[in-house]
């Protein structure tokens, strides 16, 4: 009879919100995936099949001719190479400079350093259109138009604010005692950065590497402004260029679009394993 005192567990009232949110997320996901799916579908169809208007249909047969054509095209090789030649150094340089600046702001503050930090970070809010014409004239005067140099320099410079911001904030979480312990062991400031602060900041570095690489790789505006000849074009312009060469090459364009997005995917997959938190755990807590 003791059971009589125990109330049956109250059934929670039906809460519709999780279901609503779930459905909304599915719809959004589909909306975002649709263009990719469309491109994927058209990339494995013959030009003839696309021309017949069957853009969204499942292809009659898996046609890989578009990929073969793109991969065999020497211009595409050139585009890819150019994009790597811009993205890799600009990614590395912007992160390196951001890490150096961030370390100083986080660990070696000086009079006015907070103000300087704000000035640097505010660089993030400059719309490119504002600096486009002055930059063009600058690089023109330096005779660097239609080379990759302006792209490398601009992407490096434009990446410094976000890299500095992120690295400073991450370094700020590295306990000061670690720096002091390293200094007592004989490390100089550079060794503290390389051997202690950076290894502890792998998550921030991974995030920045992914972010910067993707952003630079996918950029359309700057290469459009600063390159003219086909030899110097990057992959995003290359996709557009293909349209000019062939009348309506939807299939080839689709294939190239997918190929062009592979490197960013690879970079993401490579770095995402470092997106872990809690690297500093166990440093200073008991």
């Amino acid at each position, binding site marked *: 009879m003791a059971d009589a005192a125990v109330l049956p567990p109250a059934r929670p009232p039906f809460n519709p919100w999780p279901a609503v949110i779930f459905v909304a997320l599915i719809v959004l996901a589909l909306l975002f995936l649709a263009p990719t799916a469309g491109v994927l579908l058209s990339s494995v169809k013959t030009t003839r099949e696309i021309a017949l208007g069957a853009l969204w249909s499942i292809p009659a047969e898996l046609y890989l001719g578009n990929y073969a054509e793109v991969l065999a095209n020497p211009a595409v090789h050139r585009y890819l190479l150019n994009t790597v030649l811009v993205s890799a150094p600009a990614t590395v340089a912007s992160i390196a400079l951001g890490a150096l600046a961030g370390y100083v702001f986080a660990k070696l503050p000086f009079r006015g350093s907070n103000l300087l930090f704000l000035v640097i970070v505010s660089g993030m809010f400059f719309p490119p259109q504002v600096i486009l014409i002055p930059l063009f004239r600058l690089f023109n005067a330096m005779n660097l138009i239609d080379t990759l140099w302006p792209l490398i320099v601009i992407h490096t410079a434009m990446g410094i604010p976000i890299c500095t911001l992120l690295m400073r904030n991450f370094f700020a979480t590295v306990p000061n005692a670690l720096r*002091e312990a390293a200094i*007592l*062991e*004989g490390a100089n400031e550079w060794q503290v950065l390389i051997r202690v602060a950076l290894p*502890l900041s792998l998550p921030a570095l991974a995030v920045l590497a992914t972010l910067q690489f993707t952003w630079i790789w996918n950029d359309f505006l700057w290469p459009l402004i600063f390159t003219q000849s086909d030899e110097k074009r990057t992959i995003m312009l290359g996709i557009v260029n293909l349209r000019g060469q062939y009348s309506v090459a939807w299939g080839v364009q689709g294939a190239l679009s997918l190929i062009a997005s592979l490197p960013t995917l690879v970079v993401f997959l490579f770095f995402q394993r470092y997106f872990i938190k809690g690297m500093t755990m*166990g*440093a*200073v807590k*008991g």
Partner: protein
Amino acid sequence: MARLVLEDVTKRFGAVIAVDAVDLQIEHGEFVVFVGPSGCGKSTMLRTISGLESVSAGRILIGDRDVTHVAPSRRGVAMVFQSYALFPHMTTAENIGFGLRLARVPKDEIARRVTDVAKTLQIEALLDRYPRQLSGGQRQRVAIGRSIIRDPEVFLFDEPLSNLDAALRVRMRLEIARLRDRLDATMVYVTHDQTEAMTLADRIVVFNQGHIEQIGAPVELYDAPANLFVAGFIGAPAMNFIPAEIEAGENGKANVRFGAVSLPIGREAAEGKVTFGVRPEHLSVAAESEHDFLGRVEIVEKLGAESLVYLQTGFSKAPITMRIPPELSVHAGEEIPVRVGRKRLHLFDAEGRVI
């Protein structure tokens, strides 16, 4: 020979004077403990010795070498931080060998010395673990290992045990005592823990607001505090302070009077207002005929090995603390006769100096 000499060392942070003209000589092999209330400048003192903070004025000598402007790593000092400050991305072995790697010592020699240190500290089994895989006590050992591997002349410890639980703290305290005996080095140890200070120190330095109040062997500070501050700071539970007066007694010697109590102090003293200090263990429950005063028991704390009794009296606003054997049964609300031990009476003048 690593004598550590501080000459007139001052450290200011803007308007705050964290260390105020400190003069101190620490002999080679000595274990000196800095104690003092929080914010009195103990850590800052230690950090100026290590070189992590520059001095605002004064000189620091280690082994008769002026190191005031020498880089921290060249001073021959090692520091163990309260927070351990282990590098989280390095294994125990890498943490301990970090300084040797920076100094480009050959790999096999590093390995050998790391193993030696690990043996000494009994952490050989932990060499491949990361700090997050270690317990608090183990981390502490690794931090100590990192400090001893480079054979420093002076060890600096900043509250190394304060993050550990009570039982572990006792064990690590013993281990540090063992380390002290084995290593032929000068050690400076900061703590706010009375027991650590009393048990480890050859000499204790009591800091207050950036300056030294008194330097002396633990028992010396306990038995003969130079002033009210030291008397109140050393010893737990703290010494009782009672407002009192000196008056003339027999044979030209003086008496101290508080309330209806008048005790001979056995020597001469100028008449006037004083503070009378007596430690809780120098008060005892007495037979009716021998008691000096009656106190009403407010609270009894039974600690097992002893009991602490807090008394209300007519002559002191603050409750008087006394320490009694646990087998004495005393109850709250009771009025008990108390006798003051005659041997250890402390008298302080209006400036707080001992008389």
